């Protein structure tokens, strides 16, 4: 696979890892937050931790739109599907997220709700066109990478006057979340490995305010393991030098200003939501999007009554602290006992790149290695 295999070359990895080993200061820890869930996934899938010196610690950030979606929003969608006979279209990632009272989209589907997994936002339009006699609701989630596709289909829906189609908008923004994590202060983060594809859309300049305000280095890292390792080296160098600059390692896909056309489409369809509840982070101002009045006809929250359902976390679940990098998964009382990938209690365990799920597999191996 072009542009993939070359960035997975094991020999280059070993050379870069050697450089990192030589350049880290043995007397200190380097706490690097990889913001994006996809990076967490890559770190475990390729066994990157094994190649790093022990004093580099990856802290798994909240860049997992599945993990930060409040359970109440999923419950509202399930209620809609069951009470109003709506066809609910969702990305597969959401199906098994625990929604409170031991429910989930998958369980609701088993009970008979018409919930369909789609690969592309365009598929939701197709379903709406094929079922004109039914209401079709698209459960839109994601950071800025996944938002432009939703904007694109809303424009098409409006042009087609697809009156049975609507979008339940849960799109969230990266820079405000990043700022919130850094603001909390207690996470002790030295640097940030910035998201690959969010940056493709918003551009590397979008992180300037964060980097300046909190004085930490940010490297925009590509998606492949060599990208992650090279970015780690760049962060180590900045930490050693005491600089706090934004660097772009993913130059083949990220520019300073990003994808202007995608940004324009987003701006045409969405506007800032004054306040949005993030699972684990609390209510953050100006951190999420809602649909503009011009597209109100396709806004599920206007078409249907979708009351906010307050769902408390299960007692003992410390997903909020884990999401903010304050605690390790194994510090949670439920970890590995009541809460496992087969029976997840919080979102961090459901998504395979949630910190707890990743830790569950990998952490057991590290402990096992220590014993044998």
């Amino acid at each position, binding site marked *: *696979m072009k542009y*993939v295999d070359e960035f*997975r070359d*094991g020999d280059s*990895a*070993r050379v870069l890892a050697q450089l990192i080993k030589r350049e880290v200061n043995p007397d200190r820890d380097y706490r690097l937050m990889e913001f994006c*869930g*996809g990076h967490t996934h890559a770190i*475990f*899938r*390729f*066994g*990157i*931790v*094994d*190649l790093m010196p022990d004093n580099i610690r990856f802290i798994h950030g909240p860049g*997992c*739109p*599945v993990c930060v979606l409040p359970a109440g929003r999923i419950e509202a969608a399930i209620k809609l599907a069951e009470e109003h006979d709506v066809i609910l279209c969702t*990305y*597969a*990632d959401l*199906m*098994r997220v625990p929604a409170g009272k031991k429910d989930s989209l*998958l369980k609701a589907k088993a009970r008979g709700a018409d919930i*369909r*997994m*789609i*690969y592309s936002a365009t*598929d939701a339009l197709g379903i709406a066109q094929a079922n004109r006699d039914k209401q079709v609701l698209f459960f839109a989630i*994601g950071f800025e990478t*996944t938002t432009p596709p939703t904007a694109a289909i809303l424009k098409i829906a409006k042009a087609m006057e697809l009156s049975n189609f609507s979008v339940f908008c849960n799109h969230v923004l990266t820079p405000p979340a990043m700022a919130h994590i850094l603001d909390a202060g207690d996470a002790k983060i030295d640097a940030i490995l910035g998201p690959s594809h969010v940056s493709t859309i918003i551009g590397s300049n979008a992180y300037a305010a964060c980097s300046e305000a909190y004085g930490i280095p940010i490297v925009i890292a590509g998606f492949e*393991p060599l990208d992650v390792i090279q970015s780690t080296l760049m962060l180590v160098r900045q930490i050693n030098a005491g600089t706090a600059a934004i660097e772009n390692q993913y130059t083949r896909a990220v520019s300073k200003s990003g994808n202007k056309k995608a940004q324009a489409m987003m701006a045409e369809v969405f506007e800032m939501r004054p306040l949005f509840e993030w699972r684990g982070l609390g209510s953050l101002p100006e951190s999420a999007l809602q649909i503009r009045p011009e597209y109100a006809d396709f806004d599920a929250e206007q078409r249907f009554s979708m009351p906010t359902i307050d769902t408390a976390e299960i007692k003992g679940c410390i997903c909020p602290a884990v999401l903010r990098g304050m605690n390790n998964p194994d510090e949670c009382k439920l970890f590995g006992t009541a809460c*496992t*990938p*087969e029976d997840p209690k919080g979102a961090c365990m459901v*998504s*395979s*790149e949630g910190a707890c*799920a990743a830790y*569950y*597999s*990998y952490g*057991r*191996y590290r402990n*096992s290695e220590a*014993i*044998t």
Partner: protein
Amino acid sequence: MSRLDIKHGVIEMAHGSGGRSSATLIDELFVRHFDNELLNQGNDQAAFNVPAGRMVVSTDGHVITPLFFPGGDIGSLSVHGTINDVAMSGAKPLYLSASFILEEGFPLAELEAIVISMAKASKDAGVPVVTGDTKVVERGKGDGVFITTTGIGILPEGINISGDLAEAGDAIIVSGSIGDHGIAILSSREGLQFETTIQSDSAALHSLVAEMVAFTPHIHCLRDPTRGGLATTLNELARQSRAGISIKEISIPVKAEVKGACELLGLDPLYIANEGKLVCIVAAEDAEELLSVIRNHPLGKHASIIGHVTEDQHHMVIMETAFGGNRVVDWLAGEQLPRIC
């Protein structure tokens, strides 16, 4: 008896009621195509002699959607699947039974295509379908057709193959590329719509197994990695044998298109179903020669030694990635779903 209108007809409730319609369906569709001495006797059971030895029996229900996919269909799958389950004990499969649950309204033309495919798979494998059953459920209560096949076989003397017999140091061989079947199925499912030339690898493995067990008595475990893929099978064997498993990613054969489809959908080939591959755990000293034996068989041309069994009280499956680091290949939690994230 009136003839079946295979071209335009559909399954009706009467076809399952045991009367004239049932008999017509059975005669003109099942008996006609399966056509063997035992079945043709027309009894509710088949009676036969068996050579002395231990017998093996296995059964499998098949509910796959779509019914027809690149490289096979529910019919051929149900024949191969049960033959393989019997063969994984080291046994020689002898006979199959097939039970059909048909949905009212299911087109007879499609049913015939499935039965023809089953008959061919059965004849090619030399394992006849000697008895069967047909039931019909109301429209809406079945996915077209469900097929359950049961197979019996005979274990040659001296063969003792079981999932709990792996020993530290044993070699692990996989008979060919993984993920083909699952990707072929996904490509024909609605909604994912990608074009690929990948075909299901659905195949009967008993002749390969026969050659393997004839070559060496030191095969400890055999299993075909179906649902849940290679990763699930390795975890099962590790748990049963109370041992660990260590494998190398670069030794695991995966077709380029399967890799591409997995990248596209965010899936891991290790967890994707196979229907014509086997995993073999054998004493280390026999591994290289056994590999040659497997590679000489048409179904094992791309076989590879992928790792070995270790001592590990946690029974973990650890993989050295092509990249150089290690990762845990854990049990699958629920069905693997495509991800955006």
